[in-house]
């Protein structure tokens, strides 16, 4: 028994040491790294990063172009458009970096997607957009893109605190047949290879993100479902309180990293 313990401890050391030799560790990542925090950008392959760096190559921009048209197009019974109440979309600079925020009327946290649907149903008397629709992904990307390069700056003070704590508990809770918590992969093992994937710190600062595997832009909550699925855990619905609180926790964890929307990832 004792001997096993020692052998395992040694094995643990070896795998920790392995983390130190990843080639990405020796690169100066500029604003993509803040102290120990590293954006998923810094773990991505050079080709993937190049695709993100070039706005003409980045497919996220196509979706945002469509959303820019929607921004100016009246919809719903009130005959209003986003532009009518908000003016230029540039006026939302900085906003996307602060979400989720506490929304008084609901008594809970609200994501950008939910804010947009609130404007649609209340302000415009229009139907809400589905979470993973091109309209919602494009508009969420467009809103967050106005904060590109600004540091994520999510508050967990005051009424947000209990929701942050729920998100934190979710993050450390093991789940699924594989019995793994988010923290097992994205804290304990960041930088190491999980088969063909380099595990990142699981930072959400680039969402909605164009994923090569999806061949499509996808929401953060789609990614969370994927991370639940891969440990064979029952995922939650997009927009569920569980994922909104989890988003609050991981966005706050990313505080200081730049908003990258729309990021490109593998």
């Amino acid at each position, binding site marked *: 028994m004792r001997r096993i313990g020692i052998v395992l401890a040694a094995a643990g050391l070896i795998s920790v040491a392995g983390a130190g030799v990843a080639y990405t560790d020796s690169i100066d990542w500029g604003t993509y790294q803040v102290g120990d925090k590293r954006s998923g950008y810094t773990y991505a392959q050079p080709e993937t990063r190049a695709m993100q760096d070039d706005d003409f190559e980045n497919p996220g921009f196509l979706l945002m172009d469509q959303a820019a048209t929607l921004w100016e197009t009246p919809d719903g019974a009130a005959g209003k458009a986003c532009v009518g109440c908000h003016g230029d979309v540039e006026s939302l600079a900085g906003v996307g970096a602060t979400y989720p925020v506490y929304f008084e009327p609901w008594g809970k946290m609200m994501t950008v997607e939910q804010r947009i649907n609130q404007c649609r149903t209340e302000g415009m008397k229009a139907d809400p957009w589905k979470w993973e629709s091109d309209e919602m992904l494009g508009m969420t990307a467009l809103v967050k893109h106005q904060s590109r390069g600004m540091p994520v700056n999510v508050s967990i003070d005051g009424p947000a605190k209990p929701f942050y704590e729920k998100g934190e508990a979710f993050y450390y809770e093991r789940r*699924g047949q594989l019995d793994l918590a988010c923290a097992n992969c994205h804290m304990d093992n960041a930088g190491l290879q999980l088969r063909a994937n380099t595990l990142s710190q699981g930072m959400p600062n680039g969402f909605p993100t164009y994923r090569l595997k999806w061949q499509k832009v996808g929401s953060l909550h789609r990614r969370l479902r994927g991370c639940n699925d891969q440990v064979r855990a029952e995922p939650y619905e997009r927009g569920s309180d569980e994922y909104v609180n989890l988003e609050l926790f991981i966005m706050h964890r990313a505080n200081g990293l730049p908003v990258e929307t729309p990021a490109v990832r593998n």
Partner: protein
Amino acid sequence: MRKRPLLTAVALPLALVLAPALGAGGAAAEELVAYEVVEGAIPASLTGVPGDPEAGKAAAVHRQKGNCLACHAMPIPDQPFHGEVGPDLSAVGSYLSEGELRLRLVDSKKINPETSMPGFYKVEGLHRVAEKFRGKPILTAQEVEDVVAYLLTLKGN
């Protein structure tokens, strides 16, 4: 063929814990074989049927089964992308015994509660398992035996 170990003082409470979970999991759930942990090992075979190293290698590689390469390097050069989350297993058969390997596979948290290695033959103590997998271990008892037999062949150079 060796006889399966009788329920022991260790295994009995485990079986009692499993019973309700299996009941809820539906008819498809396999009744897990009880086992006894002795000094960091499960000395007795789960099935009494000797493991088949070739089948074990296949189960270790299979992404829906062991998927060990997600986390470990193994001496299987025709498979690309070996993981780094756990230690290299190339010589594991030279320093861990059959029984130690078996416990490691069945439920590695009995050795290290903090480990990120899944328990491959357990259904209790898990949280929000997707419905499709509820009440089922990742590997069958015989697959565990096969993988143990394969690991025992890994002696390094």
